[in-house]
């Protein structure tokens, strides 16, 4: 048995890594819907979900169960194979991008085996991400076409046109970074942002500000989110490309959208905000920042505990303190010497992704939807020239620094 384990250790570690990342991603996707509803509700002076469990925390599970057990009618005249295939394609492509994103620095050592701190370490990971993004158009376009219905078709066509247009400026806006770092590897791009002693002054959102603006705007458009969510403009298109989908197939499109949000936030933090790097310099004066993961978990746990024991339902008074105690336990765990080094990378990456996801929801709560011609004009006449100008500017500056 142990010989078997030793010979297949790499495979086993890979499987464990895939399962762990999938678990985290799926939980994030489920609770992102809760988070979005809650945040948008509070921005609009409402309460949001609060009936199922304390603070509505069981709402994602209730939604999932509802989607599973709902009737799933297939409309007449659909193209059966494509109709069933499209949601799978959308979800699979949206969830596989996370595999190439570096989640922490260097290599991990598990029972004497060294493995990279990411699901798959690819030299051309940036290109892999763009390849998966390029394919993700199909999920939406095919769903719209296969439904054999006018509004979904219009929604699908709109989305493919939009995703194609914004994919261009998204790809062009990263060229500046590739020129500066001379690599397609996301891990090396992150390491290039470390500078001498670390610290956030080396992050690319400063030196590649134009690229950052272009990338983040076109990333929002690429994921079909507000204010670029014309694909599902209710007034014009009923529900857009997923009008004819019900039950779990609809849920899969929903999950694909949220998974795409998570991966895009990961990409923005990796490319422009130093990925897993800490914003504090790597000097002895800043050693106390190593305890920030533990401190934030402890503070969150304490706040939840004191709010929990005063919650207005008896069930909440029972459940919330338990969750708080678990959080405090995690906090204590993060302060242990064996864990504290490993947790730094994932903690900072997760913190950046959380802030970006909040911004996503904030945008949706703030901005009205663009009109279709405005969307196309903005993409082709503003964003694309801007990203091209960024490429030109970056190469001119680099050429000057080489010659001097």
């Amino acid at each position, binding site marked *: 048995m142990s010989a078997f384990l030793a010979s297949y250790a790499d495979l086993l570690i890979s499987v464990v890594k895939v399962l762990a990342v999938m678990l985290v991603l799926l939980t994030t996707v489920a609770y992102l819907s809760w988070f979005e509803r809650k945040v948008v509700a509070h921005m609009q002076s409402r309460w949001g979900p609060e009936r199922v469990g304390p603070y509505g925390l069981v709402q994602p599970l209730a939604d999932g169960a509802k989607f599973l057990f709902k009737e799933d009618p297939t409309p007449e005249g659909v*193209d059966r194979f494509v109709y069933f295939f499209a949601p799978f394609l959308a979800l699979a492509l949206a969830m596989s991008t996370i595999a190439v994103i570096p989640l922490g620095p260097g290599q991990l050592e598990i029972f004497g085996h060294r493995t990279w701190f990411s699901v798959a370490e690819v030299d*051309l990971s940036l290109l892999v991400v763009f390849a998966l993004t390029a394919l993700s158009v199909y999920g939406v376009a095919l769903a719209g076409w296969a439904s054999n219905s006018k509004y979904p078709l219009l929604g699908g066509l709109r989305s493919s046109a939009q995703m194609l247009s914004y994919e261009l400026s998204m790809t062009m806006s990263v060229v500046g970074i590739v020129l500066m770092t001379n690599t397609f590897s996301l891990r090396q791009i992150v390491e290039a942002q470390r500078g001498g002693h670390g610290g956030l002054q080396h992050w690319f959102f400063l030196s590649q500000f134009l690229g950052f603006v272009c990338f983040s705007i076109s990333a929002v458009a690429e994921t079909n989110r507000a204010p670029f969510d014309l694909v599902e403009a209710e007034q014009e298109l009923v529900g857009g490309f997923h009008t004819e989908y019900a039950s779990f197939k609809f849920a899969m499109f929903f999950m694909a959208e949220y998974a795409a949000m998570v991966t895009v936030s990961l990409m923005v933090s990796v490319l422009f905000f130093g990925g897993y790097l800490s914003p504090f310099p790597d000097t002895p004066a800043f050693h106390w920042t190593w305890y920030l993961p533990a401190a934030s978990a402890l503070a969150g746990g304490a706040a939840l505990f004191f709010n929990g024991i005063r919650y207005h339902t008896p069930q909440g008074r029972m459940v919330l303190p338990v969750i708080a105690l678990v959080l405090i336990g995690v906090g204590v765990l993060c302060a242990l010497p064996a864990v504290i080094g490993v947790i730094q990378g994932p903690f900072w990456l997760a913190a950046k992704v959380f802030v970006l996801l909040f911004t996503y929801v904030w945008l949706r709560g703030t901005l009205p939807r663009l009109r279709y011609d405005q969307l196309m004009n903005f993409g082709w006449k503003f964003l694309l020239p801007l990203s091209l100008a960024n490429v030109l500017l970056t190469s001119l500056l680099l050429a000057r620094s080489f010659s001097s």
Partner: protein
Amino acid sequence: MTPELILFFVLAGVALAGAINLIVQTHPIHSALSLIVVMVALAGIYLLLGAELLAAVQIIVYAGAIMVLFVFTIMLLNAGEEERTSWSRAATWVGIPLAVLLTVVLGWRMAQSGPVPVLAAETGSVSRRLSELLFTSYVFPFELTSILILVAILGAVVLAKRDF
């Protein structure tokens, strides 16, 4: 059999099945989807050969950009099922022998030629080597292709703007 060989046969099988399905299917969208399957399977074979850049470009350009336009056009034109006419029957009778002939000629040539020496990328990464070649030895064909594409884009714009 090494794992690479098994993977090669799986990918080659997928590519072949996709190619046959592309011809057999009567609906244009299904044919286009089969073509995408062929391209993705080919990208997998490039990966097996160690040509990672080529695989990524294959998916981004062919499976991503070009095939999206194909699918887009088919969807916009609302093309229906293919119809069989007397011409298509004639095409079958001429086409199958020609395809067999092509396969035989190609297979014969490949069997005659020995193993091709693999250009190992000793200096730097493959993408660096490729860009060096592209901007030194092959700069003229590269620029020529760019101008050709530019002319094609201008032509498309002129055609689209005609009715204004």
